């Protein structure tokens, strides 16, 4: 039954009955129904069965948690994979025949993992972390949890499509997970899936059935992202509560809006690239393939295509994807820094404009990933210029974050530490981005560990820090409890120090020319001197992974045994998600949705610690104008 709640001030659901404390509804066909026909706010969960409440829920908060928990499971898998291949890189002489017991004997040769297994691990590590964790797990979680709550909406514009968004992600996950059980294993052609390796089944073991399942899984994933993005944009632009102008939106919502716009414009391009690849693989077309000979297989019947075409299409998504991953972290970190510094965010307008500028530039820099493809040097210089322009809005953001916490009354919560850590990582990783944005340097450093270090710090660990900050900060809103602080601090320091211990040395390896994607560097005399450094990196990686298990334990322990949150607004924050009940039901607010009167960053104003957005502007008070 599609319903539209009709009471003034209330948002609605277009599918499925849900909460309300008011009397009349009108379904999409205009039939007016009474309250008895529908579920109620607080009794919603009681009346519906388990399946509809927790599995096929249309409540944005439940869907957000589903994204988060699925993302956590994938993060453990993806992280474990990195530990396994780091073992091989750090301790090449160690016997790893245990891999055969877990994954099958076909992946072990003379006590070492096979090259195909290594390729599979790095491919799935990249795919899982970039798409399933840092896109779905991060953006899917916080967009779902925060957009209706911080905008003042009962739910997403279409709760049904929102639910579908998660279930498409879930199906994508199942397909990807199932691919491990093929005799030829999961895809093993790197997460960027470049042809010809990805386009010819016989090119390698990882190019066979696993690659087909990767493409199917990613198509489902893209559909999930598009459904989600469509909903996020529509909700933010159309279903804000009274008084919530765009200028009064928290920066989290601005960030999630821009993320969603990036997603709906760039993911279809990846889908287009995938369709052409599927045709090449299954129907023998030659979009990405020209005459090619494969050893032990023979000449391939392809002609006229170009593998570089795929790279253009892939990176048209791939570069905005970097910002899809990092942008939600921008927003959450801005919010958390301001709340925990008890100071207004510095330069709200500049923060919004810089995010818009970064998003716009994201679509014009893709070829900086392709400087070594034989790109025309003039075209290369244009992309260098556009790439380096991104440094300007990025620097503005860093300056504003630092200025926000400057002389603030800082509360060192785990969330705040992760937010500060994010700023540190964004600076460190961003600076090396300036190196790589220059074609003259990039040509030297391309495909070395310098690149690995750069993007792991800035978009990998950086985005994870944003995610952790968000989980620690909004955990009381999600579960009505606090996460354990001590475990949070241990988690932070181990992760922060450990992340630098892993990736800082990689810069030196990269500068010395150590190439990425090699299963082992042991056979290369020029790289032998980095053997001990590789051991150190591997040990650091194992420690950091163990620290994440502590986080996972803390997360689930706190859900059941965490300190109960008795305060409606535990962080003394201004945004309106803290005006809901401590554990809001479907529909979020029991009565009217509050009206917003001011921007969300009135901290320390006129001698008051904080002034919620719902507080009307007092006579004689100067309102903040953006």
């Amino acid at each position, binding site marked *: 039954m599609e319903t539209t709640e009709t009471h003034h001030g209330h948002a609605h659901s277009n599918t499925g009955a849900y909460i309300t404390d008011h009397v009349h509804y009108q379904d999409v066909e*205009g039939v007016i129904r009474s309250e008895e026909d529908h579920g109620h706010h607080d009794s919603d969960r009681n009346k519906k069965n388990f399946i509809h409440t927790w599995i096929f829920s249309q409540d944005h908060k439940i869907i957000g948690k589903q994204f988060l928990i699925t993302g956590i499971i994938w993060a453990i898998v993806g992280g474990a994979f990195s530990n396994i291949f780091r073992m091989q890189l750090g301790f090449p002489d160690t016997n790893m025949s245990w891999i055969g017991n877990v994954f099958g004997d076909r992946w072990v040769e003379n006590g070492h993992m096979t090259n195909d297994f290594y390729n599979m691990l790095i491919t799935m590590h990249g795919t899982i972390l970039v798409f399933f964790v840092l896109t779905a797990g991060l953006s899917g979680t916080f967009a779902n949890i925060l957009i209706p709550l911080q905008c003042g909406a009962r739910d997403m514009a279409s709760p049904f499509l929102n639910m579908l968004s998660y279930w498409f992600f879930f199906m994508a996950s199942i397909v990807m997970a199932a691919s491990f059980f093929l005799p030829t294993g999961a895809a093993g052609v790197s997460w960027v899936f470049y042809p010809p390796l990805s386009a010819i089944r016989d090119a390698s073991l990882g190019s066979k059935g696993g690659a087909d399942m990767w493409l199917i899984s990613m198509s489902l994933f893209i559909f999930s992202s598009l459904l989600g993005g469509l909903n996020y944009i*529509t909700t933010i*632009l159309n279903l804000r509560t009274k008084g919530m102008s765009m200028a009064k939106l928290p920066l989290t919502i601005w960030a999630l809006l821009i993320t969603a716009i990036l997603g709906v414009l760039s993911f*279809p391009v990846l889908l*287009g690239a995938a369709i052409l690849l599927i045709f090449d693989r299954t*129907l023998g077309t030659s979009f990405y393939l020209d005459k090619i000979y494969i050893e032990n297989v023979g000449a391939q019947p392809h002609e006229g295509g*170009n593998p570089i075409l795929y790279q253009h299409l892939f990176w048209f998504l791939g570069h905005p994807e970097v910002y899809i991953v990092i942008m939600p972290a921008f927003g959450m970190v801005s919010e958390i820094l301001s709340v925990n510094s008890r100071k207004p965010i510095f330069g709200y307008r500049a923060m919004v404009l810089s995010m818009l500028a970064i998003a716009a530039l994201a679509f014009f820099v893709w070829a900086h990933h392709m400087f070594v493809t034989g790109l025309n040097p003039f075209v290369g210089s244009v992309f260098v210029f556009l790439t380096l322009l991104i440094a300007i809005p990025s620097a503005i953001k860093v300056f504003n974050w630092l200025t926000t916490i400057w002389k603030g009354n800082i509360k060192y919560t785990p969330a705040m530490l992760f937010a500060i850590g994010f700023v540190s990582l964004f600076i460190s990783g961003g600076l090396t981005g300036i190196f790589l944005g220059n074609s003259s340097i990039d040509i030297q450093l391309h495909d070395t560990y310098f690149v690995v270090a750069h993007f792991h710090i800035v978009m990998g660990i950086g985005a994870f820090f944003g995610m952790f900050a968000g989980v620690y900060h909004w955990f009381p809103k999600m579960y009505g409890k606090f996460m354990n602080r001590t475990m949070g601090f241990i988690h932070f320091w181990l992760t922060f120090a450990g992340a630098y211990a892993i990736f800082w040395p990689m810069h030196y390896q990269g500068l010395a020319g150590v190439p990425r994607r090699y299963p082992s560097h042991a056979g290369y005399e020029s790289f032998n001197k980095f053997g001990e450094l590789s051991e150190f990196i591997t040990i650091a990686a194992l420690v950091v992974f163990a620290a994440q298990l502590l986080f996972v334990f803390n997360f689930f322990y706190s859900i059941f045994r965490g300190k109960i949150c008795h305060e409606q607004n535990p962080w003394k924050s201004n945004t309106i998600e803290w005006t809901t009940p401590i554990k809001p039901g479907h529909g979020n607010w029991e009565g009217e949705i509050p009206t917003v009167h001011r921007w969300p960053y009135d901290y320390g104003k006129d001698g008051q610690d904080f002034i919620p957005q719902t507080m009307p502007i007092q006579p004689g008070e100067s309102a903040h104008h953006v």
Partner: protein
Amino acid sequence: MVGAMNNERERQIFAQRFGLFIGLATIVMLFVAMTSALIVRQGAGNWVNINLPYQFWISTAIILLSSVTMFISKKAHKQMEVQRFRIFFWATFILGVAFIINQWLGYFALAKSGFYINGINSYQYVYVISMTHLAHVGVGLLILLYTGIKTSVQKFNPNYHHIIGFISVYWHFVDLLWIFLFIFFQLKFF
């Protein structure tokens, strides 16, 4: 009370329409990617010009006609002319099916002329892009079928008009998209 109800309902419908247009934007981006690939390939040289068989011309006429029937159907729904609405709505569905059949006939004609799906590059693009478009028409047809059955077996409901409007927007969109592709295939950029 009734005024507030109408406002809320209009707000909801506006949000849904807004979402629909974002959805269409994603489809536009998909075809931008694929048509850009064709342009890049054409620029690489050794390009064989595309001559579409007459079946694709007929398809174009059919889908144009289906847009006209969709338009009349929507107008009839607004004017609460039930019979007229149903006739033209189902006519749109039938024309949609005819479009799909005719596109397949076009593919057969191409194959008969030796332009197989894995043959000459330029025709590979015709297959992949037009088949992707066909998939979107197929989705439209499923929606038309569902709505057609629903509006035929249920009592006429004037408040269903905005849903007919959404379907109409989508149908005109896939129609325009095909017109664009049809012209695009026959252009030479380099």
